[in-house]
């Protein structure tokens, strides 16, 4: 029986686990450094892995001492979250799923539990069991924190890619002196149409374009919202002093627009980009003349 300890301070399982983590910090960190999670992340130097392990043990000890072992928002976890993010991201780059990373985190538990049993040889079986349970819960919470981190990492990645995709899919092309075109591909939502509008208007100013062609060949469907976005873009282009032509309206979309009863009356529409370009060129006063009449053409 650890009488000397009982006399000095109270021994709840939580405080026992906290003290154990402090006492055996070095040993746990050394063992963890050999576990797959640390070994694969810190490939260059083992010392780094041990150092990372120490930080993690400190954080866990802090959480254990506050008694909030099941709380993922405990102060201790906040401190190591950044480090965990780095480790999770590194594992994710190897192609591991969140579940696999979580299993690797679970691999940290057995060494710690083994050390705990060795650390409290004089404890009653009941007390030891309580401590072990507590440590297990603590490690489970750590696992949850890691999972949370990796999920939020994934979400951040998706957000970033969405933004990049949005920018990549709205190129403004200069077709002719004073004629720019945007081929729209994919679904038009309000965020996207905002980007389209901004980039198109900027290029109208840059190129001093008198005509802007919105080609919607790649837009899978047009509903009243999309139509409204198109109308807004057309109106903004007109306010700038240029003219907007909507092209690439497929038969099915034309029918949908009619069935929805949408009024595109003020918008100049053409069935294909070529038609729209021809219209714009004609309005600019440029004529397309096929060279070498009567001669053997290239086609």
């Amino acid at each position, binding site marked *: 029986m650890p009488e000397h300890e009982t006399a000095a301070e109270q021994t709840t399982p939580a405080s026992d686990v906290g003290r154990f983590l402090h006492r055996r910090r070095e040993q746990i960190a050394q063992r963890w450094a050999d576990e797959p999670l640390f070994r694969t992340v810190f490939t260059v130097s083992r010392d780094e892995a041990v150092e990372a392990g120490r930080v993690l043990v400190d954080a866990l000890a802090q959480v254990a001492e506050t008694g909030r072992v099941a709380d993922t928002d405990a102060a201790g976890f906040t401190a190591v979250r950044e480090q965990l993010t780095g480790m999770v991201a590194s594992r994710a780059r190897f192609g591991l799923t969140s579940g696999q990373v979580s299993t690797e985190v679970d691999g940290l538990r057995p060494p710690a539990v083994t050390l705990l049993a060795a650390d409290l040889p004089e404890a009653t079986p009941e007390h030891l069991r309580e401590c072990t349970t507590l440590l297990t819960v603590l490690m489970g919470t750590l696992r949850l924190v890691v999972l949370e981190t990796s999920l939020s990492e994934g979400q951040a990645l998706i957000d970033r890619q969405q933004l990049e995709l949005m920018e990549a899919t709205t190129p403004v092309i200069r077709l002719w002196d004073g004629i720019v075109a945007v081929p729209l591909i994919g679904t038009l939502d309000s965020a996207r149409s905002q980007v389209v509008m901004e980039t198109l208007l900027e290029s109208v100013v840059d190129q001093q*374009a008198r005509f802007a062609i919105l080609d919607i060949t790649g837009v899978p469907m047009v509903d009243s919202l999309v139509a409204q976005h198109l109308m807004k873009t057309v109106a903004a282009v007109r*306010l700038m002093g240029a003219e907007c032509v909507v092209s690439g309206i497929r038969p099915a979309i034309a029918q949908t627009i009619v069935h929805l009863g949408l009024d595109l009356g003020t918008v100049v529409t053409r069935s294909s980009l070529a038609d729209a370009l021809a219209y714009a060129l004609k309005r600019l006063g440029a004529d397309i003349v096929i060279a070498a009449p009567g001669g053997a053409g290239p086609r």
Partner: protein
Amino acid sequence: MNHDLSLSSAHVPVLRLGDVLLITLQGDLHDGTAEQLQRDIAEQIVRSPVTGVVIDISGVEIVDSFLGRVLAEIAASSRLLAAQTVVAGMRPAVAITLVELGLSLPGLRTALSTEAALGMLATASPGGPRREPR
């Protein structure tokens, strides 16, 4: 509104180039100035053989429904006096704001720059009613 007296009392100059009036708006337009401007333009059109009005708003960075209404009113009153109004050099941000405000100013003619606006007025039939309604 009253943060800068010198600015709010400043006149917007109305320049006459041949048969075209040229107005350049800079920064904020205050109630009093706008009213004065509308009066000036109408008087100038009546006094001299003006067939076109060009309003350059490339210096305007912030727009509200008030400015939109002023532009529409200038255009409407000029049309009554047989002069065409062209708004030139609107910035992208201003255009987006106006559209989001629901002010697409349908009766207003627009041009990319003052030069383009003058060219537009020169090609339009002199003195006639507005051509090519878009």
